[in-house]
């Protein structure tokens, strides 16, 4: 079973206590597989205790990309988190650990 890391790349962004994960297929032909397997529910399950709130998914077929907006996932917010990675910059690579 391949990890997402083999077929897609990802960038993490933040707004307050929300983490935004952009998942992009290296090859456009893999995009349908992402749409099928990497659902909002699957991402919420995979990230487990990292994401306490809901996960919303947006589809961007022209970019072969999925956008995941993960609420309540940055330890209370970038500016008051006690965590080391308060922005969640490294969360892109947590998503890419997903086995699909």
């Amino acid at each position: 079973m391949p990890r997402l890391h083999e077929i897609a790349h990802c960038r993490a962004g933040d707004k307050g206590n929300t983490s935004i994960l952009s998942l992009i297929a290296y090859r456009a032909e893999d995009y349908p597989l992402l749409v099928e397997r990497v659902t909002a529910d699957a991402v919420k399950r995979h990230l487990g205790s990292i994401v306490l709130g809901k996960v919303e998914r947006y589809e961007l077929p022209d970019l072969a990309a999925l956008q995941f907006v993960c609420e309540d996932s940055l330890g209370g917010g970038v500016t008051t988190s006690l965590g080391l990675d308060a922005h969640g910059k490294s969360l892109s690579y947590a998503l890419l650990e997903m086995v699909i």
Partner: protein
Amino acid sequence: MPKSPLRVGTGAAFSGDRIDAAIALAERGSLDFQIFECLAERTIALAQLRKRRDAAMGYDPLLERRMEQLLPLLGQRRLRVVTSMGAANPGAAADATIAIARRLELPLKVAVVTGDDVLDRLDPATPALETGQPIGGMGPLVSANAYLGADALLPALASGADIVISGRVADPSLFLACIIYHYGWRLDDFERLARGTAVGHLLECAGQLTGGYFAEPGYKEVPDMANLGFPFADVDGDGNAVLGKLDGTGGRIDLATVKEQLLYEVTDPRAYVTPDVIADFTAVMLRPTGPNRVDVRGARGTSRPDKLKVSVGYLAGYVGEGEIGYAGANALARARLAGEIVRERLRAEFPNLRIDLIGSTSLHGRSFDAAEHPYEVRLRVAGRAATAERAMIVGEEVEALYTNGPGGGGGARKYVHEQVGIVSTLIERERVPTGITIRESSRNAKAA
């Protein structure tokens, strides 16, 4: 007819960004405008604290170093600069810039954009968007700045100033203002504003468009990252653009880097909200047109938001941290034991102590690797307190593990820093009047 295309380039993605990459682009990029976006979420609140200690401070700490190198280039290259380096004190930033111009005997006109500071008119009972709780109840308020739009910058650009200095302005609006001004777009031409906003959004994070925050050996190779080039865009009168970077600089611009940055921090790709426009990025079309060149078009827009977002900073107490490292056999178990010892000793005063095992679970809270045997692990403990003195106890307890904790603990460090929290709220546009003031270094400075 205005010159087309217009070339806008990036000078900084945040306050501490590299200066040499910006100067290279100013020198060799044939730019019309260079934009230095220097305000992250917390930057203004921290600047406000510096301004309270010294009324002449509160602007970007790197402003002087940037201006020293930039000012001599402006006249020679017909380059204009737009920047949010004013932070909490744009007037003082302009004074400091003018002082450098005088010392270098350069004529210079600086326009200061005012109006973003709304702390004096914000009702403390206003609920924060994030929590629904009154903003006045979060902690002592230190700053409240409305995100201004491109419209606030237009009078400054029309003044003919060489440099426009602002406080809080929505990041893409710094770029969009230059494009609107140059082509004379109407402020209700939302289709064009959306395209210009997409360009600004792509450029605002500088190196993040050219391979920064991207590279991964073996998967996403980026050449010569030590000399990563900052990006520019050639924008036509309809807002279509070609992204590029200087020949001879490191990095790469292609579909992969541009896609990552287009979606970066976008909470709804159908509705990316700035003060200027609500832009739909789902229809954006990207097309490579050459080495390190990507054509961008297709963003849509139909309206702008009624209200402006306000970023509110408050004092959130102090954070104390301590770290100590373990290596070799059973490193993980020894680091865990060390964390348990500190937790037990601080339980009463720090019930919400954070314990991280760096090298194992510090970033994602768990390891996705089932067979986990890190050779070395660093314990990190963090806790929040009302005063710096109490916060220091966290690091002291970790340091005491040297002689009271598990075997082989080394390299203890302790830190305390003041924490500033940020929440947001909304404000009616008519309650945020903006203006400009002009500062000039005398024309005969050059002749002298």
